[in-house]
């Protein structure tokens, strides 16, 4: 039982990271109907930004309190990756907005290749390990919960609350929802659609940057290829939960995290990704629009 709960905690931590990335996928898909394949690499970029900021901070002020360092890392990573995604959207995706469905997808795949290779060229191909930043572990009822896990879950919960509030209760969120429903009508009613879409990309990137920082803190290592696997899993999470649905993305992320950790705990760790992808396929076969997704009604 304790073992099971322990795995549940691990899965929840992992799932929070996936959920944060998945929101970026699902929002961009909801608003312009495009699979932003480069989002995983945006996450990796966020992790690298956090890593470099951490090294700068340690270099400048040796004994900086870890909480403050983490806070600065998150903020800078959010700003940096937000800027990146803003530029990417403006230069690579916006010219293709009216184009046929595959064009932005191919551009996004190209962007994903370009971003990971950009980091490989500028930062080198090797693993980048950092010493453990947070190492306290608490024992609760025989279950060991590390401070890292608490931080990840709490940060995720706080961000999701803020995010949920923005989407549901602010003029910006209203503009986003309107653009999502009908872009042309939203534009006619005076919403700056381009700006709304840009902000959506920036928000998605900022959440991915937080996920990147958390990933770096949790595993203590990052490498330029790290965008791919978490990116694909987060995309899987978004699809599993029903792409376009925000609660679905979080639910999907948590499910993927739980499946992964439980499978690794009770079966073989080698096939954990196979299990994740198989469950995705099975869920989609029986519920083709994801768990919380609205089924698309086709009109003739």
């Amino acid at each position: 039982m304790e073992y099971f709960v322990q795995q549940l905690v691990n899965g929840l931590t992992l799932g929070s990271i996936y959920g944060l990335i998945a929101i970026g996928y699902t929002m961009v898909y909801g608003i312009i109907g495009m699979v932003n394949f480069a989002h995983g690499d945006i996450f990796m970029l966020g992790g690298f930004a956090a890593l470099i900021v951490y090294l700068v901070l340690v270099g400048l002020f040796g004994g900086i309190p870890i909480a403050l360092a983490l806070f600065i890392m998150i903020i800078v990573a959010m700003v940096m990756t937000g800027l990146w995604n803003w530029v990417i959207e403006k230069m690579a995706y916006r010219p293709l907005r009216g184009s046929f469905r595959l064009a932005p997808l191919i551009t996004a795949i190209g962007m994903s290749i370009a971003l990971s290779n950009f980091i490989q060229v500028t930062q080198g191909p090797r693993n980048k390990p950092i010493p453990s930043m947070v190492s306290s572990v608490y024992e609760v009822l025989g279950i060991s919960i590390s401070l890292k896990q608490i931080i990840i879950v709490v940060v995720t919960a706080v961000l999701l609350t803020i995010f949920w509030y923005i989407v549901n209760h602010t003029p910006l969120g209203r503009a986003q929802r309107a653009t999502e429903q009908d872009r042309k009508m939203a534009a006619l009613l005076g919403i700056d659609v381009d700006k709304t879409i840009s902000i959506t990309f920036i928000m998605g990137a900022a959440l991915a940057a937080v996920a990147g920082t958390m990933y770096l803190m949790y595993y203590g290592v990052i490498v330029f290829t790290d965008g791919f696997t978490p990116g694909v899993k987060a995309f899987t999470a978004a699809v599993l939960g029903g792409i376009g649905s925000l609660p679905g993305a979080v639910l999907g992320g948590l499910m993927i995290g739980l499946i992964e950790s439980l499978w690794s705990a009770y079966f073989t760790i080698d096939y954990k990704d196979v299990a994740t992808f198989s469950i995705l396929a099975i869920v989609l076969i029986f519920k083709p629009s994801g768990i919380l997704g609205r089924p698309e009604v086709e009109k003739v």
Partner: protein
Amino acid sequence: MANITNTPESAGSNLMARALREAFYAGLVALGLFVLFVGLKTDQNILNELILVQRWGLLAIFVVIAAVGRFLSVAYIRPFLARQKVTNAVTGLLPDSVATRFFRVPIVVVAAVIAILLIFAGNAIAAALPAVLVPWVTMIRALAIIYVLAFGFFYFRVYIAAHFNTLAIIALIFYPPVMVYFFGYQGSLKYVDNFGIQILIYVMLAWGLNIVVGLAGLLDLGYVAFYAVGAYSYALLSSYFGLSFWVLLPMAGIFAALWGIILGFPVLRLKGDYLAIVTLAFGEIIRLVLINWTAVTKGTFGISGIAKASVFGIWSFDVSATNNFAKVFGLPMSSAYYKIFLFYLILALCLLTAFVTIRLRRMPIGRAWEALREDEIACRSLGINTVTTKLTAFATGAMFGGFAGSFFAVRQGFVSPESFVFLESAIILAIVVLGGMGSLVGIAVAATVMIGGTELLREMTILKQIFGPDFTPELYRMLIFGLAMIIVMVWKPRGFVGTREPTAFLRERKSVSGSFTKEGHG
């Protein structure tokens, strides 16, 4: 109101002011983008700790390039492009296109003279010059030759466009002998193998995927799985049972087609992006199984020592065999014969793919695929069985992937899961889309440009001259590939060939512009 009385001069200075302002912003954004990733580099010191190396000079170069590029684009390139669209008030004609300005007869004469001079006297000139200048001589020679050839293509463009298929096939058939003639057996290896075979493999894969994506409109992100199935069925069956290539080639195709049906069956109900993610997942599952099922596949070590193909069992390319090709014909031993044989083999496989695709498009099943792509509901209402239509598309596409896979195994002599990553699927899909989806010629052109272009980068010794001896152009291959994908897509969203001859037509055959149809072709 003041804007109405703009004189040309004030418009010009406005433009300059705007260009400067935008250049400043571009520089600022570039500074923001690159300050962490280019300005600082994480590196390991002797204690294996991460340290930061500062590279502010490089960062400055990035920022200046962004600013200058933006300035030139706003101040010169955009007004130039705008002027190209305005007719001359006196003659009523559009200005000369960029291509006709670029390809002028006097320039081509000069280029031809330089090319001929450097081809025949290049070695003597190179010997007389200091070693630093030698790569420059090579580069000038290459540029002159390319310019003359491009002029030829441009001058005869109407004829070439009309007879493209015949000309291309003739050129490909004579490609290996010409390369052997110019570079000798050993020197031709690079051109036949690295360029010829490499590009043709991708052409074949892209034509295979084109059946699934271009014709049937099913977005498949896991095509590389079938490539892997083909490669591993050849590798495993030939090393465990000693079967020959000619037996296993059709078997690999059948296995891959079977897998196409097995993987296609569960995803029949899925559409668009859901289909994309599930096919991607299947591609990853197959790769992960290949990695982890070590008892059979030897995991990440891969399978090596795969038997070579023979010329229908008549002549072998094994050095020890009595019917060795070179021994039979009394030729000097060289690995080039095998490569040339492989070149013709993959060329034949490509032509088979093209032939089958063209014929299938005219058959009921091909029309059903294209109908399915344009409108699934209409398709079903008209009584087309969408299940079999989709499954045959998956199976046919997978079969060609399987053929290409077994060819890949026989060419490399070694297969490992490393060769079947998602990136390969992405590259193949990119070639299909960049080629204009559904257009065989466009796809072949896209494969040549994208694969040949990145292979060419390996040959650029000139870059070492500019950026110093530590510079390895190979590192930048995929970076440039990714950027090229973006640039081509933004520049030509419909791919290289945006129009296509329709298969079904009423009275007369009219080419339809890609922009009128749903998925980008007529």
